[in-house]
């Protein structure tokens, strides 16, 4: 009820309150105030990014807070993607000859 004020409807949650709920939901804690502030900034950026994706998407997808909302795009890619060698991986049909013949 702290969110309701007499003369207006429920005001949107403050960012820090949303972040607090995120930390509780996904069991996140940060080692020091500087790291907390940095993660709060990343979280705010990601929420804005999710709203942009929502506008851009041509399907019915919904974007927003996820377990990865306190990670930068780079951190997320490093943690969850496999190496990006795939675009150079030889086509499965081609036979790949190794330079030094006989190498296993």
């Amino acid at each position, binding site marked *: 009820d702290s969110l309701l004020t007499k003369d207006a409807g429920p005001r949107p949650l403050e960012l820090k309150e949303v972040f607090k709920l995120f930390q509780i939901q*996904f069991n996140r804690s940060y080692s020091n105030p500087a790291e907390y502030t940095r993660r709060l900034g990343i979280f705010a950026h*990601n929420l804005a*990014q*999710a*709203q942009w*994706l*929502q*506008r*851009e*998407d*041509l*399907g*019915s*997808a*919904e*974007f*927003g*807070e*996820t*377990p*990865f*909302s306190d*990670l930068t*795009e780079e951190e*997320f*890619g490093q*943690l*969850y*993607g*496999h*190496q*990006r060698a*795939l*675009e150079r*991986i030889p086509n*499965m049909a081609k036979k790949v000859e190794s330079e030094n013949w006989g190498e296993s």
Partner: protein
Amino acid sequence: VPQTCDWRKATNIISSIKNQGSCRCCWAIAAADNIQALWRIKYHQFVDVSVQELLDCDRCGNGCKGGFVWDAYITVLNNSGLASEKDYPFQGHQKPHKCLAKKYKKVAWIQDFTMLSSNEQAIARYLAIHGPITVTINMKLLQHYQKGVIKATPSSCDPRLVDHSVLLVGFGKEKGGMQTGTVLPHSSKPRRSIPFWILKNSWGAQWGEKGYFRLYRGNNTCGITKYPVTALVSPPAKKPPISCPP
């Protein structure tokens, strides 16, 4: 090709959602889930196969540092099958362990593996007849995904930069109408019905649609048609024992 297909609705074919944690082994989980589902469809044996064997015995020895589904299938062929998850459980350690495949009885094996054509109709047909397959996509849009069907363009999700392997378990069509859920004023676009793929991820059930997500079907969204790869789990059967529930 049937209108819809959802292998999750078939009893005991699709195992529960896994969570790779900090181990970059989506490729091993996708391959293990593929072999497991095909084995269950073909032989009605509900095996749970070892992901850790694929990590420890991989020819590149990368363990949790990433890999490719075709290396997982080569590991299964080289080791004459997969041990059970119970005997050879997932550890998720960063550094690979010594390969212990020889120590354990194999509960599933494969004859071969193959890459399907990049035609989405052909992929849907194969999926409905034979069972789930692995695909590798650009995962960029998944970080903030909550639900619904992602329909991207090559500029918002480059189909050439594929970096995440998952299991393709079905397809369908979402009715038209306004966008569901928390509608942002500018987002309530009227929509025609949306054809979609159903994909099983390995990031736990708290993510996405209880661990699953859906991609638009028909425009190679996020590079889904680049590496459609599956194990071959038995000699070509004349009539598949069961087909995909609608």
